[in-house]
């Protein structure tokens, strides 16, 4: 089989053993790679009802057929496990050289099972798998861990690691790789920490032949050229930070834990202001021509830089009601170095700070609060205490969903999460297609698995019917599943004139298959149904597809304009969505549907 190693590396860290298993062609024809293959392997390797932070939950790293093709933006990998935040499927993507190294050691996927008794660092290279003592790395930041391992192992190793947050089982801990890129969402860093794996390093240079190298070479040149055109302009110039000023002007920037009552001016922290007033440099993932990464030198900190994109800017700033640039940059840097998802960290703090303002914190918890001078200082100290699981941070490290259930007193209504995953910086009261996508996403409040905002930002958005939004989310989810499985970066999507046609041709040129565009689109449908079926297996029910109460109870009022969405409107859209998926009105996948997709024989 061209394009794949046809091998899965299975590592059991309990027994410190490893083996290779064959990856069957029919599996990758159905689930491709990346997020899709990860979902398949999770379904196979995760026992029903497994506790996410136990030895039985597998941690899976997946490459894809496009990794190694040198096509722009394709050096990506997926990390998949049962999420300690949601209890459902948790998948997260990251990028750069380590994706090449995973495939370079001869694996299409690495499945890590069990749990080590002592802290270890895994090393995978031509000699096999080593289980090195990692006690000297405990407590070190993500960048220090990478640097240390680079020094110990020598050149050519690429490392994914956790920071103190992952060691301390912060439920929204991330996995960091290649100098600070993050597989951020759904808490895979905590799963890695529960296995006492501080880091995993890969070194391998195995080349996987493609079926038609000449055709790929032409495609590579064509895509490189197009990727430097109008379709990616925003990402190349200001990066995604450009969203902030636009969202603020359109009154769709969530602020103050989605209360949107802030009188603060966030123009000071816009992408335009940062670009004009701060020292900003551009960085690229391996094999990427776009360069969306903007590294900002943090004021008053020497030459220290932070990699900043819109969601981190939003979550460290407007979401918590903070507009001080230095605080935002330092907080974002702190989360990256500690290995915490910025969205969930910011959202949990924003919820807690609102609880403090409302005076509903239990007295016993008040004693655990750090001393602070002002709001900015409080936020920074909360982040620190979470990463360390010290004081009040030991409680907040559980995330807003769990802690709000513990407090009660109505605080659940403004804990801004879906299924336990905190919400990104898109305003569902204004963006109704996005509202539906956030509610039904298999991994919780996710903006990346549907790209539904595209529909809300189009010139036709005012005329959309609820039924149309249901169909659009299905289309967006299936399209995203194919992108996340091949894997393309989402920022290259507009480069394609016809995504399925062009991607099917590229996949065929890599693998030698004869998959047609419709079959490729059906892979997206199959992957989303499998993810949903995993969630159903793990206890999903209709009530999990919902939005926080605040979204329904507190309309956005801007002058004469009122933006809102009611529970019945969302319920109607969810029904249309289930119908478009071919599911029952309770959101269950009929047996015949599973059979038709080849998920169930």
């Amino acid at each position, binding site marked *: 089989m061209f394009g794949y190693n046809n091998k899965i590396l299975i590592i059991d860290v309990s027994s410190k053993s490893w083996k290779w298993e064959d990856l069957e062609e029919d599996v990758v024809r159905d689930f491709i790679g990346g997020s899709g293959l990860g979902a398949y392997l999770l379904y196979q390797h995760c026992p029903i009802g497994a506790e996410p932070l136990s030895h039985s939950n597998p941690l899976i790293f997946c490459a894809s057929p496009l990794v190694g093709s040198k096509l722009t933006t394709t050096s990506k990998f997926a990390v998949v496990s049962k999420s300690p935040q949601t209890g459902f499927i948790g998948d997260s993507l990251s990028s750069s050289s380590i994706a090449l190294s995973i495939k370079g050691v001869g694996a299409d996927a690495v499945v890590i099972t069990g749990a080590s008794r002592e802290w270890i660092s895994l090393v995978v290279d031509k000699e096999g798998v080593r289980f090195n003592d990692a006690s000297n790395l405990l407590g070190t930041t993500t960048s220090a861990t990478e640097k240390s391992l680079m020094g110990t192992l020598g050149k050519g190793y690429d490392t994914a690691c956790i920071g103190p947050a992952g060691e301390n089982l912060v439920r929204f801990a991330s996995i960091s790789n290649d100098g600070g890129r993050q597989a951020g969402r759904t808490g895979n860093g905590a799963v890695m920490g529960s296995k006492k794996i501080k880091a995993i390093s890969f070194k391998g240079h195995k080349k996987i032949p493609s079926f038609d190298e000449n055709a790929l070479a032409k495609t590579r040149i064509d895509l490189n050229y197009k990727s430097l055109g*109008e*379709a*990616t*302009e*925003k*990402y190349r*110039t*200001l*990066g*995604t*930070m*450009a*969203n902030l*000023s*636009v969202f603020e*002007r*359109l*009154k769709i920037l969530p602020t103050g834990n989605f209360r949107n009552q802030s009188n603060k001016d966030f123009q000071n922290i816009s*992408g*335009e202001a940062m*670009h*004009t007033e701060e020292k900003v440099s551009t960085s690229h993932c391996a094999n990427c021509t776009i360069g969306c990464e903007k590294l900002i030198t943090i004021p008053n900190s020497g030459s220290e830089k932070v990699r900043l*994109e*819109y*969601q981190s800017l939003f979550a460290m700033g407007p979401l918590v009601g903070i507009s001080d640039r230095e605080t935002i940059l330092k907080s974002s840097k702190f989360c990256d170095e500690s290995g915490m998802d910025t969205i969930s960290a910011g959202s949990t703090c924003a919820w807690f700070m609102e609880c403090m303002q409302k005076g509903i914190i239990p007295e016993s918890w008040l004693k655990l609060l750090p001393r602070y001078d002002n709001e900015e200082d409080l936020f920074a100290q909360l982040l620190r205490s979470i990463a360390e699981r010290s004081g009040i941070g030991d409680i907040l490290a559980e995330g807003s969903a769990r802690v709000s259930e513990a407090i009660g007193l109505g605080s659940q209504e403004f804990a801004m999460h879906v299924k336990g995953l905190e919400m990104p910086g898109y305003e569902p009261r204004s963006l109704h297609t996005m509202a539906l996508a956030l509610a039904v996403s298999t991994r919780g409040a996710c903006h990346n698995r549907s*790209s539904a*905002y*595209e529909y*809300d*930002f*189009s*010139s036709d*958005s*005012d005329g959309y019917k609820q039924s149309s939004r249901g169909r659009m989310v299905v289309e967006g989810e299936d399209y995203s599943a194919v992108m996340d499985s091949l894997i393309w970066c*989402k*920022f290259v*999507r*507009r480069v394609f004139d016809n995504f399925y046609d062009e991607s099917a041709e590229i996949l065929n040129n890599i693998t030698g298959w004869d998959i047609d565009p419709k079959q490729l689109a059906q892979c997206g449908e199959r992957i989303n149904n499998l993810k949903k079926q995993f969630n159903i297996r793990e206890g999903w029910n209709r009530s999990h597809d919902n939005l926080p109460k605040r979204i329904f109870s507190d309309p956005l009022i801007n002058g004469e*304009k009122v933006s809102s969405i009611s529970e019945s409107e969302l319920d109607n859209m969810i029904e249309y969505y289930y119908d478009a998926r071919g599911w029952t009105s309770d959101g269950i996948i009929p047996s015949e549907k599973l059979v038709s997709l080849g998920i169930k024989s």
Partner: protein
Amino acid sequence: MAINLTVELFGNSQVLTGQKLIDLQFLKPQVDICDVIQALGQRFPMLDGKVLDFGTKSLLSSYALNLNGVGFKDAAQIELADGDSILILPSQAGG
């Protein structure tokens, strides 16, 4: 009769010009997007080929139009009136 419009620039269009808001006045009864683009082109030639196409008097596909911060519009859909604000913003929504 004069028509006064405001153009709000976002993203790289703001960085290139150093301007967030631009006031434009047209001394004629009807104004369309082509007039606005032509006027912008005369004042900010650096936008040509990066934000606007002065030849066709249109936006590049990397930018979108929004009228008064309310709805996204295709250029042909926009009917401009005195006091309107035209937002020129990046068309890629992701991030």
